[in-house]
C-alpha cells in the first residue's frame, strides 16, 4: 500500500504540491489527471522517492521513504517500482534486450538470468523479433513496449507511468494501455499521469490535481 500523509513539496516560495494525503491500495489503478504544471509529475516523483517532501511523509508498504538513505532508497526503488516515461527514456546505445536487462543488472541478477528474464518480457510485449535492435531502429510504440518490459523486469509491484502515451498515436496508445490494464489485472498497482481523458478511462479511479491540491 502507498500512503501519502500531508505531503507538501515546494521549491523556495513556489509550492508544487500542497498538503496532499492519499492511500493507494495494492492492485489499484489510478489515473492522475490535471492541467500542465498542476503537480502531477511531482506527485509521481514523491511516490517513487525520487523527491523528498518538504513536509509530510510517503510510506510504501509501511516503509517511510524519507527515512531511507540514498542507497537504500535506490534499492527500494528498483525492487518496488517500474517507470514508464512519456519520452520512453531508453538508453540509446543499448539494444532492446539490453535495456530490459539494466534494472536486473542493478539488482545484481546473474547475466544468464538477466537475459532469460528480458527475453521473456520482450516476448510478452510482442517484441520477439526486436531483441537486438537499438531504440533508434524501433517505432515509437515498440520503444514504449520496451520501456514497459523494462519497468516489469524486477517484478515491480507498482508501475509509475508519466504520460506513457503522450508520444504515441491514438491506436498505439490504446494498445499500450491494453498491456497496462492486463498488468493491473495480474495485481500490479498502476499510477498513471495523463491529461488525456480517454487514456484516464482505462483506470479504476481518477484523481485530479489542480494547483498542487487533490480536488
Amino acid at each position: 500500500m502507498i500512503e501519502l500523509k500531508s505531503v507538501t513539496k515546494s521549491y523556495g516560495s513556489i509550492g508544487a504540491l500542497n498538503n496532499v494525503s492519499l492511500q493507494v491500495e495494492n492492485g489499484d489503478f489510478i489515473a492522475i489527471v490535471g492541467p500542465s504544471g498542476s503537480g502531477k509529475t511531482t506527485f509521481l516523483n514523491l511516490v517513487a522517492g525520487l523527491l523528498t517532501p518538504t513536509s509530510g511523509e510517503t510510506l510504501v508498504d509501511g516503509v517511510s521513504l524519507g527515512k531511507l538513505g540514498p542507497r537504500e532508497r535506490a534499492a527500494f526503488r528498483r525492487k518496488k517500482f517500474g517507470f514508464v516515461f512519456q519520452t520512453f527514456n531508453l538508453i540509446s546505445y543499448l539494444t532492446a534486450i539490453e535495456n530490459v536487462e539494466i534494472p536486473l543488472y542493478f539488482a545484481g541478477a546473474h547475466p544468464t538470468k538477466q537475459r532469460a528474464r528480458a527475453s521473456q518480457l520482450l516476448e510478452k510485449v510482442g517484441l520477439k523479433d526486436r531483441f537486438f535492435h537499438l531504440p533508434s531502429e524501433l517505432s515509437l510504440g515498440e520503444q514504449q513496449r520496451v520501456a514497459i518490459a523494462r519497468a516489469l523486469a524486477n517484478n515491480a509491484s507498482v508501475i509509475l507511468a508519466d504520460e506513457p502515451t503522450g508520444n504515441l498515436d491514438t491506436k498505439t496508445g490504446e494498445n499500450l494501455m491494453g498491456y497496462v490494464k492486463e498488468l493491473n489485472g495480474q495485481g500490479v498497482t498502476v499510477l498513471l499521469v495523463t491529461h488525456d481523458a480517454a487514456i484516464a478511462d482505462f483506470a479504476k479511479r481518477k484523481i485530479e490535481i489542480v494547483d498542487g491540491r487533490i480536488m
Partner: protein
Amino acid sequence: MRTVEFVTKEMGRRKRKTTAGILCILLGISIFVAAQTINSALYDKAKEQLLRFGANIIIQPGGELFDTNALTQGTALLPEVYGKRIQTIEHGGMIVAVSPKLHERFVVGDVSLSVAGITEDEIKAKPWWMIDRKIVTDQFPQGNEILLGHYTAAHVGPVSQVKLGDEVFRVSGILDETGSADDLMAFVPLHILQGLTGRERLVNVIEVSTSCISCSTMNLYDIADEIDKALPDDARVIPVKQIAEAQIGTLTKIEDFIRIVYIVVLCLGGFLVMNYMSSTVSDRRHEIGILLAIGADARKLYTFFILKALFLGVIGGLAGYALGTIISMAAGPQLAGTPVPPILHLLPYSVAISTAICITASILPAKRAAQLDPVEALQEV
C-alpha cells in the same frame, strides 16, 4: 549485462565521443613518448660527445702529483695488470676503455720525441683520432710500427721510418690535428715500448673512460670509488673533476628538461581528460537520471565513470605510445641529429601514466555524476 560490458558498449556505440576522449589523453602521452624517445637519443648522443673530452678517471702511481705533463715524464710505475682488475669492478660494464700507457723520450735526429706505448683501447677512448678524416683502423701501430702525432710528423719531416734507440719503426700513419697533447707525441704498441725500455708489464698511467657519466644510480665518482677499492694502495685513482662536473652538469640539464616535459604533459593530459569527462557527465545528465530512476545507486554510477576512465587510459596509453614512437622516429633524426630508435620499456610506463592521469582526472566528474539529482536530470532532454 555486466559492469564492464555496460561501459564498453557505451564506449563502442558512441565511437565519436570515445575517440574524442582517447584523443585527449593520446595527445599528452604521444608528446611524452616522443619527447622521452628523442631526449633519450639526444642524451646518448650527448654522452658520446662528452666522452670525447677524454678519459674521465686517471690511475697513477701513489705519490705522483696529477699533472698531464708530469705524467709524460713519469718515472713511478704501475703494474699493467691493474688495468685488468679495473674491468672486474661491479659496474665494469660501464667502462668503455681502459688505456694503460708507458711514456718515454727519445732523440730522433735533433728532435726530442715523446713516445707513448698504447693498447688498442686507446682507439675506443679516443674516437676522434682520425687519419685523413677517417677513423684509425689498419694504421694502428702493430709490432715495430709507429703512429705520429700531427706536429710530431711535421718536426721529424717526411719520413717512412723512425729509429728509437736501436729499433727501427715503420710509420703506420700520421694523425690529423686533434688540438691536444697527442699532436706532439708518437705512439707505439705498449709491449714493444716496455721491451725497448726494459719496463716489462709496467705502465706510468692507466686512463679509464666510462659510459655512465650521470646515471640515475651511479655517477663517475661512484665508479672511481669502486676502482679505488679494487686496486692496491700503490695506485691512486683520480676522477677528472673538471670533466666529470661538466659532463654531469650538462646531462643533468637534459634530465631537468625531460622532467619539465613530464610535468607539462601530466598537467595537459589531466586537464584535457578532466574537461572531457566533465562534458561527458553534462551530456549524459538525462541518461544518468534514467539510470537513477530505474535503480542505479551513486556507487554504480561512480564505477561506470572510473571504469570508463581506466579504459580510456589504457587505450590512450597504447595509442599514445605508438603515435609518440612514430613521431619521434620520423622527426627525431632532424631534431636530435641522430637516429632515434623506439624505446620498448616506455610502453608500460605510457599505459600506467595514461591510466593514472585518466582516473585521477575523472574522480571529480564521476563524483558529480554520482551526486546528480535524478529528477532534475530527467527533466533535461
